[in-house]
């Protein structure tokens, strides 16, 4: 029974428990319920991925209405992969959340916080599961609206401004997406992705379709913080509560990447991409993004902001992978989606631990804290090595595939950009290492203690995962490869 309704349960469980959480009387019980929900989702997502790794597809008809009239949940390897990342990060964030949230959020608001968190989870999981473009838009709005609320709950007053800016930008992005969906709906009369794909093929030359596609791409590009549409991101990540920084940094842009892949290659096609300037735009903006965002990261004076800029750079790598529009490129992009979630999850957890103890993530408050908080700082160090792409870490695997994908098409400039990005990453990582380990401790950092185990354990789980997935690539690369092939890439031009 569960197996038949797996795809739906993954979305419906957090959706139903979110309002329940909101009315729970105290913080602990809200946390406990959320914990149970996230781990259930993780188990379901893990189950789901085992069913589709061989390339099969689960099709679930919502309410018994058959597609293309009803909403269809259509799970292939890529959907299951993204759902696994989202629920996995949520599940590992929750044990970390207990202390961090109690410290940063007023007690009476904690049930609401967890309720919003679950809604955000619903949105992200829903995006991953659905096979219907309008349904996808609805889930995108659910996740976005709840994340505005979550960011606004940050301790500083500036988090309100950050959330407001994000709201404006996010709404514009969503509106663009909706306009695009509207245009292609007007052309085809259907909203089911599979159906759209088939019906669009004969009319791919229509100007309306092209315009709709442009709106969709730009709208999603805003959501995934494609350079230069990234300006909302650093503030949103910096001023959000630590837990939300972890969760959003590890999942939100990744889900946007998924939407991009699904819309661009699944609904339209790689042939269409190559006919339009899309692939060039991705390569151009991706290359600029890698270099500009990495260079900007070097000049940051705040650990969270620094890693936020590095996130933009990493997303730009992924965009480069999409822009190559080959099986290898998309595989690299998907592998990096997974690996980057691991790195940034660990890094923002460590930042949260610093904030937990020191109340700030600004450089001037962190001098030489590595001696007092060795576990936290070594975690930052290892995850940063992964960020650079040192062999033996997960980051190396993704960089390796990016370089291979670039070389496959003989795009030397792209390969060079990828390596240059790594070099710049060495630059900003060195700044952090120097700050944490080499500077003499100041008064505030000389007496501080190590972060509590409740924060350290999830953080180190992710750090170890960074190393583990640097050696064992069975899950990541195989699933990503299957997913890339199922997008129909490489069928027309080999």
């Amino acid at each position, binding site marked *: 029974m569960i197996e038949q309704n797996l795809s739906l349960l993954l979305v419906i469980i957090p959706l139903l428990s979110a309002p329940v959480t909101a009315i729970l009387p105290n913080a602990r019980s809200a946390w406990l319920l959320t914990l149970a929900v996230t781990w259930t989702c993780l188990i379901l997502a893990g189950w789901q991925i085992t069913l589709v790794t061989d390339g099969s597809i689960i099709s679930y008809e919502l309410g018994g209405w058959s597609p293309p009239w009803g909403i269809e949940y259509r799970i292939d390897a890529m959907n299951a992969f993204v759902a696994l990342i989202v629920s996995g990060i949520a599940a590992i964030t929750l044990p970390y959340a207990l202390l961090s949230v109690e410290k940063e959020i007023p007690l009476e608001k904690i049930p609401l916080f967890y309720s919003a968190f679950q809604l955000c989870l619903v949105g992200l999981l829903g995006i991953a599961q659905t096979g219907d473009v309008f349904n996808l838009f609805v889930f995108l709005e659910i996740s976005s609206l709840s994340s505005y609320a979550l960011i606004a709950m940050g301790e500083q007053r500036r988090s309100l401004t950050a959330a407001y800016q994000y709201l404006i930008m996010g709404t514009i992005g969503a509106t663009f997406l909706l306009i695009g969906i509207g245009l292609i709906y007007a052309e085809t009369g259907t909203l089911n992705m599979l159906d759209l794909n088939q019906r669009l093929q004969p009319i791919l030359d229509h100007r309306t379709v092209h315009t709709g596609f442009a709106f969709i791409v730009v709208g999603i590009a805003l959501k995934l913080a494609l350079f230069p549409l990234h300006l909302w991101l650093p503030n949103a990540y910096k001023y959000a509560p630590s837990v939300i920084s972890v969760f959003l940094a590890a999942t939100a842009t990744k889900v946007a990447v998924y939407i991009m892949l699904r819309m661009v290659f699944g609904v339209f096609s790689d042939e269409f991409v190559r006919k339009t*300037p899309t692939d060039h735009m991705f390569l151009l903006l991706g290359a600029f993004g890698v270099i500009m965002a990495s260079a900007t990261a070097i000049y940051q004076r705040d650990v969270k902001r620094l890693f936020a800029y590095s996130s933009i750079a990493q997303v730009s790598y992924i965009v480069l992978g999409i822009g190559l529009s080959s099986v290898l490129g998309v595989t690299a992009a998907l592998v990096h989606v997974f690996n980057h979630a691991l790195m940034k999850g660990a890094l923002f957890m460590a930042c949260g631990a610093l904030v937990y103890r020191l109340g700030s993530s600004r450089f001037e408050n962190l001098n030489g804290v590595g001696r007092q908080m060795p576990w936290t700082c070594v975690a930052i160090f290892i995850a940063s090595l992964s960020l650079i792409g040192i*062999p033996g870490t997960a980051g190396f695997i993704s960089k390796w595939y990016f370089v291979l994908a670039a070389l496959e098409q003989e795009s030397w400039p792209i390969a060079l950009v990828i390596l240059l990005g790594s070099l710049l990453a060495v630059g900003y990582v060195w700044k952090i290492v120097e700050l944490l380990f080499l500077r003499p401790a100041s008064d505030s950092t000389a007496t501080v203690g190590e972060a509590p185990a409740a924060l350290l354990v999830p953080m180190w789980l992710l750090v170890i995962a960074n190393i583990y997935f640097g050696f064992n690539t069975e899950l990541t690369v195989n699933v990503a490869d299957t997913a890339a092939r199922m997008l129909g890439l490489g069928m027309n031009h080999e």
Partner: protein
Amino acid sequence: MWIDSLPPFAPFYIAALLALIARGRLQSLVMLAAPVLGGLHLWLDVSPGIVTAMPIMEYELVLMRTDRLSLVFGYIFHIAAFVAVIYSLHTRDTSQKVSSLFYAGSALGAVFAGDLITLFIFWELLALSSVFLIWASRTERAIRSGTRYLLIQVSSGMLLLAGALIRYHQTGSLEFDFIGLEGLSGLLIFLAFGIKCAFPLLHNWLTDAYPEATPSGAVFLSVFTTKTAVYALARGYPGTEILIYIGAVMTCFPIFFAVIENDLRRVLAYSLINQLGFMVCGIGIGTALALNGTVAHAFSHILYKALLFMSMGAILYRAGTIKASDLGGLYKSMPKTAALCIVGACSISAFPLFSGFVSKSMILAAMLEEGHDYLWLVLLFASAGVVHHAGIKVPYFGFFAKDSGIRTQEAPLNMLVAMSIAAALCIFIGVQPLYLYALLPWEVEYWPYEMTHVLSQMQLLLFAALAFGWLNKLGLHPPEIHAVNIDVEWLYRKLIPKFAHHAYEAAQRIYRTTTVTLRRTSNEAEKSMIKTSLGRFSLAASWPTGSMVFWIAVILGAYLLADAIH
């Protein structure tokens, strides 16, 4: 059985981790156990032809691939590591000990690597682990030159990786075997090896960093980094003709710098490059005899160069300085060290019955066999130079010369033991070369002790000694003074910083002018804007939302335009 496929780097890495937590005697024991057990394992269990691979992604990382070439380097690395560990037993600096074990292990990893990616990983680990041996001196100079060293070594690794990737892309294979100079990948890898092997103009990291390392650190450094590069060249580029010329230049130019250099460890660093030159020549010739000569020379060179670095390290440890101008007369306080140093000096000078003689002569003989007569003369000149600066200058200024009045103790026991082992091996190889020849990778009939050969070598030695004595007598020998001699390092230590400084200033000026102009124009534009009716909407407000919406418009507009043109 699994034990014979245990990669040789593993015991060292495990010991390094154990040494990190152990202290005192236990730590010493762990450190000694690594080369002893590892060496026994290699000698007894491991035979040529073993391949251990670890699958990762769709590749197989070949962690261990044994043949006679890699095995002989494996043996000497174990012996050298054993000697160097004994030599460093007295230090209490755990970080230095741990990194030296990691370093030795990485060198073994590189030597037994069967594919280019594994080689690259150990290549970089070699750089990362060794830099701590330089930084461990904890002086400002050491930290700076260590950083320069690291930068150069890491870029060598980058070149190697780039070459490996291109090679994989072109040939579909990552196997580490004959590479050859063809194509971009061959050149990049050649350059990567060349940096580590201290090719002329790429050599500065060596003379810059080695003299700054700690006494025992310099011993480790003299053994592993460059010899790993020699191994890599011998495997990847045997018979590449340009190497003969590169090697010939390497044997000659350091002589001049070594003669004027005051820091005796830097003299040894120059002489290290000179000796590498012989090996590079041998690789370039590429015949079985020449390659055997290279391997044999690497083998004996590791021992006597380590011995010389150890004796100089002992002086530095006891007297606190290693400047030729400040030393002298130390044979009175350190007679045993002096004697052992002379054994090393005899070996490097290729005195008959010492190890240098039996190995270097193979390369020279191979050179004549292949008809490179002029280059043979060059190498002969270089041999005389070696006698002069390493064979005579180092022990003379270190232990004899004018008495400087320094009175100190004999070197610590562990240093003496280490030096004695190395010295004994130097003599043993010199007297019984057949044992060394039996280890060499190729079957060659060669016997160094022929009358003509011995006589001509003696002539050369005596003549070089005569020159030294004569120059010294007449006061023509370059005086030993406190000075920093820099050669082509001038490029990046003086010229480039100066140039960069100017460029930076120019960029600043341009930036300032542009911003001032831009600001002025934008101010004027804003003023005229405010006068219009649109001004009420404060369009100039510069918070991100505004500029982001602007960018959205730009991108959407540009995209649609491009699409329309497409």
